[in-house]
């Protein structure tokens, strides 16, 4: 390598190194730090007997929305309320007895299975226990 080549290499390398030193911190800065999952195991969702039949409510489970449904036979069901399609929040349709996502007309049955529309996956189920008339929602398993 001649002298000129060597100097170009040195300069080029220097510029690359400089670019890296500027860009790396900026790119890392743009990437938000992970906020630790709120460690929630169980949430209480009010009185079981006051909950109207054939309706549902969105309950905060840590930072996640969970849909809590009371069926006509007084059974409680809970699912992750975030649609598996594109993130919208689902709602319960008393007339259909199904879970409906208004965004693109996705439907899930009362087992959380995606039965029509675009959703690709079922909704995760949560366990519901009634302890002295108090609704407790907890993660499955």
């Amino acid at each position, binding site marked *: 390598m001649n002298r000129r080549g060597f100097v170009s290499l040195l300069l080029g390398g220097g510029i690359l190194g400089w670019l890296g030193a500027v860009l790396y911190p900026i790119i890392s800065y743009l990437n938000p730090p992970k906020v630790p999952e709120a460690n929630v195991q169980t949430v209480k969702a009010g009185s079981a007997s006051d909950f109207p039949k054939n309706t549902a409510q969105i309950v905060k489970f840590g930072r996640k929305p969970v849909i809590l449904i009371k069926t006509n036979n007084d059974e409680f069901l809970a699912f992750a309320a975030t649609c598996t399609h594109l993130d*919208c929040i689902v*709602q319960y349709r008393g007339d259909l007895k199904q879970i409906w996502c208004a965004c693109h007309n996705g439907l899930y049955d009362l087992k959380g299975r995606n039965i029509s529309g675009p959703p*690709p996956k079922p909704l995760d189920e949560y366990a519901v226990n009634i302890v002295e008339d108090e609704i407790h929602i907890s993660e499955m398993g």
Partner: protein
Amino acid sequence: MDTKNPMVRRAYSWIDDRFHVTPLVEFMRHKYVPVHRHTVWYYMGGVSLFLFISQVVSGILLVLYYQADEDSAYESVRFLTTKVKFGWLIRGVHSWSANLMVFFVFVHMFSTFFTRAYRKPRELSWVTGFVLLALAMGFGFTGYLLPWNELAFFATKVGTDIAGAVPFIGEPMKIVLRGGEDVTGATLSRFYAIHIAILPAIFTVLLSLHLLFIQRQGMHEPQYLKRLPAEKKQMMAFFPNFLLRDVLLWLIVLNVVLALAVFFPWELGEKADPFAPAPAGIKPEWYFMFMFQSLKMLPAHVLFMEGEVLGILFFGLAGLAWMLVPFWDIKKKSGSKLDVMTGFGVIALLFIVVMTVLGYLL
């Protein structure tokens, strides 16, 4: 200078002594705009520029009251539109001129395409113009969220989730855009920063280049006009004739914007609640509708790929090809009736129109 007023003369020569503006004035004086049956399209870029200026002015005014915060964004916009004097007007002008701007940029682009104005030597005007359109859509997407209402909240969730489906870079891109896993107050801060600082900075640079190119090269003349001898061509002086027409048109556009803002005030809707079911009728702004509708119509799986991924790849490649049109342009064979490029343009235009209409009907 041919003014008689001694004050003006003195001022002019003071400036000219220091900055040598005479060549510039000469340049302006010799700038002509060709007059022919496609001259009307020359005004589309100017109208877009005017609407952009309205955006800047109304946007700066909005910033004075707006608060980019999960708990107060919606309230600050409501305060602005109900309590602040003429707040409703400023917001209406901002929203309406934004939409009109995107519309006119599309018209400007297609007229440039169909008159082949992107050909040598104007390749880079086309490329910068395309990037400006993409940035304008970025303005629209980020601005849509800022009032923090239900529709915007869920549309942003859906939009960023679609971005997340891009192979490889999608997931990190989504996190960076959202400022976390979900659409939250962090997303609002980011979108605000993108909307009022990052995009305007990039946009200004590209817009200056775009305008500079046009000033350097002058207006494009259609093929048939180029072949005419100089004395047969009709020309109009840029200054003052064309400029005055431009300004007149701008006045008309301003009136239209004001009328729209007065008679069709922009709605604010319900405040976003991250723990409430999505309402029916979530839709993106109209200029995203064609892409959104196509994605919706794709089946969940095409061969080995997810339908959505395929759609995104398609739009990515189509956008790239469109941006690079001047570099793969197919010239019409002499004597042949068929013009391939016109065909492409018509297909693209029809696709956009049909999909947009379907998006609102279905």
